[in-house]
């Protein structure tokens, strides 16, 4: 490998004997570097791909980052079908394959504990939103300034009450989902408003036994039925990104 290239790491896998055939970042082929039963799914990338300068210059190119993120996840998602997978953060690179081998040797113990935690399990995301806004007021006689302010204050108070109630519903939902999952994490809620629903009040990640996925989805579907289909969003299956801390 020339010095102008580096080894990009997508994920750690167990067993390390799998054959990956999915193309990765920049449509480049991927391969597995393995040692003692565990492996790293890697590809070769230009050394300057993740240098801050070249990235800064592409800041405005959202399509470029999106394609990097998708390429990274395409590989990670594909290998979850073949092996127990520890997803790595986008942008992880190493000097060369030899360094990757050294890394695997160093991390073998910690990685094994994390593989044990992930084996036969999948991540799902569940987001809960507050109810949407009321219907726009019917058009009638123009209202005066004082009447407008009164109505606006009442609306804001109503929105806040609605949000507080939604947070409580979301907490209950989180507990119900966590009961079916083997592990759970809260991801920070986003401020955006989606389609017809109100603000996001819960962004949860759940690590679910593959045998329990049906029950998990049933709980999520039940939540969607009781809160309203526009207020509950299920994402996944994901590789267990949200649970990927190495158990050092």
């Amino acid at each position: 490998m020339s010095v102008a290239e580096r080894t990009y790491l997508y994920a750690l896998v167990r067993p390390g004997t799998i054959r990956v055939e999915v193309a990765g970042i920049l449509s480049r082929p991927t391969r597995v570097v393995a040692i003692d039963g565990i492996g790293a799914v890697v590809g070769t990338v230009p050394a300057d791909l993740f240098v801050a300068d070249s990235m800064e210059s592409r800041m405005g190119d959202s399509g470029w980052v999106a394609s990097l993120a998708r390429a990274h996840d395409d590989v990670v998602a594909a290998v979850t079908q073949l092996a127990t997978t520890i997803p790595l953060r986008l942008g992880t690179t190493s000097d060369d394959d030899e360094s990757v081998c050294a890394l695997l040797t160093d991390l073998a113990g910690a990685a094994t504990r994390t593989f044990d935690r992930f084996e036969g399990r999948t991540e799902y995301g569940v987001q809960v939103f507050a109810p949407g806004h009321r219907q726009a007021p019917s058009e009638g006689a123009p209202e005066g300034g004082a009447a407008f302010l009164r109505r606006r204050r009442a609306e804001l108070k109503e929105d806040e009450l609605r949000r507080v109630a939604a947070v409580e519903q979301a907490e209950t939902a989180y507990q119900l989902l966590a009961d079916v999952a083997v592990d759970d994490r809260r991801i920070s809620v986003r401020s955006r408003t989606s389609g017809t629903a109100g603000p996001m009040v819960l962004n949860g990640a759940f690590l679910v036994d593959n045998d329990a996925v049906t029950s998990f989805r049933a709980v999520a579907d039940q939540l969607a039925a009781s809160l309203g289909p526009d207020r509950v969003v299920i994402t996944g299956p994901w590789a267990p990104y949200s649970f990927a801390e190495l158990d050092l």
Partner: protein
Amino acid sequence: MSEPPVARDVERASLVDLLDRVIGKGVVLSGDIVISLAGVDLVMLRLRALLTTVHDSETGPGS
């Protein structure tokens, strides 16, 4: 190990949800052997903020 589910709810997995995971989560390797090149995390976080603004309207649920 039992078979993991194959299908992904593509229409539900928005770009923002993806970025939450590939940039915000996932094991970070550090030390002498593997280097996530200096400054990358910071740049990626800024990119993420930017993308969130750009893509929110088109990637929300129900879109």
